[in-house]
């Protein structure tokens, strides 16, 4: 098993904002879109840097001050110096992004946050627990298993509101839980996990990404020292200077502290997230 420091390493500070162009933009599931971006030809950077699964970029609409703040997007895939992002159309920026045509420019800062080294997927059994578009954040890890021909070492539990929301095609053994019963198990992820316990109990590592209530709902079922939660807090900057995205965690001395999820996360081990799970403010 990996040590704590090797598992989640702090990334270097980004060197600048990269102007990128949208190369492809298409719907991938109900209300969810995939975009591929690559650096603008006029810029000094020709290829986007390599990334670790779990890392994200801050994207902004160039030359626009409304929306003012950039938004974090998990990097889903990389190919030929380009990045793929998958997002749910939800707020002010994504509503404009979905209307942006191919060739439009975006501002990109990243990769940001701590990621998971790819070697981590070379050993052991891995269980992926996704809620909605949170599945996209886990895709680079799942792809890594596929690349290593280790499909048998992975298992996916995927919660959605309805069938049309599922991002296909799912490359590992999986179970779906849907709120309306239109796909797989009719109900929520925690019930599905309880029902299928024998299918995941022997996993070495758990990766959880989805809406905060969903992540908190599965927390008590999983081993806290081998669970990695991909938090999705509102961020002001993404690189540590605004102190807006803090989460309460336990530090080495078991004190409750607020830490920046962009710098110390966005992935946290379950064992430090107890105060977050309990809704502590730590004032």
């Amino acid at each position, binding site marked *: 098993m990996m040590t704590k420091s090797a598992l989640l390493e702090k990334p270097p*500070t980004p*060197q*600048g*904002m990269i102007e990128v162009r949208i190369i492809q933009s298409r719907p991938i599931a109900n209300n969810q879109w995939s975009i591929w971006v690559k650096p603008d030809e006029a810029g000094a950077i020709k290829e986007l840097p390599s990334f670790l699964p779990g890392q994200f970029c801050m994207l*902004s609409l160039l030359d626009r*001050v*409304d*929306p*003012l*703040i*950039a938004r974090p997007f998990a990097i889903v895939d990389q190919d030929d110096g380009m990045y793929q992002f998958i997002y749910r159309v939800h707020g*002010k920026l994504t509503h404009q992004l979905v209307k942006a045509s191919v060739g439009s420019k975006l*501002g990109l*800062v990243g990769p940001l946050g701590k990621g998971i080294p790819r070697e981590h997927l070379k050993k052991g059994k891995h269980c992926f627990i996704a809620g909605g578009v949170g599945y996209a954040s886990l895709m680079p890890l799942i792809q890594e298993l596929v690349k290593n021909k280790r499909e048998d070492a992975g298992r996916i539990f995927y919660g959605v509101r309805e069938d049309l929301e599922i991002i296909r095609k799912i490359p590992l053994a999986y179970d779906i839980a849907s709120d309306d019963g239109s796909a797989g198990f009719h109900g929520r992820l925690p019930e599905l996990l309880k029902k299928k316990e024998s299918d995941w109990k022997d996993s070495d590592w758990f990766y959880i990404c989805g809406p905060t209530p969903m992540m908190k709902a599965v927390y008590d079922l999983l081993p806290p020292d081998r669970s990695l939660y991909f938090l999705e*807090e*509102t*961020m*002001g*900057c993404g*690189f*540590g*200077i*605004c*102190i*807006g*995205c*803090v*989460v309460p965690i336990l530090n080495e001395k078991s004190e409750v*502290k*607020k830490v920046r999820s962009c710098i110390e996360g966005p992935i946290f081990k379950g064992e430090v997230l107890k105060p977050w799970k309990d809704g502590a*403010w*730590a*004032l």
Partner: protein
Amino acid sequence: MGSVKSLPSIKLLESKVGSVEFKTPLLAASGTWAYGLEFLNHPLQKFLGGFVTKSLSVKSSEGNPMPRLYETESGMLNSIGLQNMGIDAFIQNVEPQLKAAKSSYVLSVYAQRVEDFKILAEKANACSAVAIEINISCPNIDKGGLEFSSDPKTTAEVVSQVKAAVKKPLWVKLSPNVTSISDIAVAAESAGADAISMINTLLGMSINIDSKKPWLGRKMGGLSGPAIRPVAIERVYRTYSKIKIPIVGMGGITSSRDVIEFLLAGATVVQIGTWNFRDPFCYEKMSEEIARYLQKNKFSSVQELIGLAHR
């Protein structure tokens, strides 16, 4: 990077606030540059005049409940609440790094009692900071926030006490959430302030119509961003004609045009705030564009712009 050569000359941008010199008039504002460590050795430092630290208090603080950020039209509400490591931890862990990097920084401090401001001022004397900025205008704390900058008499009291204890230039950061900011600025000047930083955020609130509750954990917060710039410009303009000490102008700057606007209104240098969250690398482009503007309009120094809108 490396475009210094293509500039008319970065020397045009050399600025001064009283006796303190900055290589450009572009400073990063308190609360938007943390403690300066994230970009300490970054190429952008060539164009950053300096930065103001996140406000430090006598004891560390965990700040306000989450959520602490909410975006509005061309603006942002925040209720961070001065989360900070405390002055002693700063002096022990951060200050040596800033000093070693020869960082040009202003130490921002806040307190809930005048005595604590004096303690902070004395500790600041041991730092390599080029000046101290007292934050008497944060809208996000229950005590010691706005009340120190809401009344000329109270402002004068805290400024004179700090002035007696501090050996560095004293900048006083004022709030726009008052009847007359220029009267407060006059009081601060008479009490010994060396510069006025203005404006802090505007107190604001936004409510989620689905949950029927305010978006921010603390309910209200400080509004920043381009939405407040015309308010800031008016306050700077109005205050410029009432005081002799320099004004450090800020409020919604996102471009070189905005910087020039503040200088014309009467600011000696500016601070860039919320925009750092979006583009912390903006300093190079802004410097180049201001230098070009100066050259095109036949100015030999950025300082010639200060207060020109008053003619």
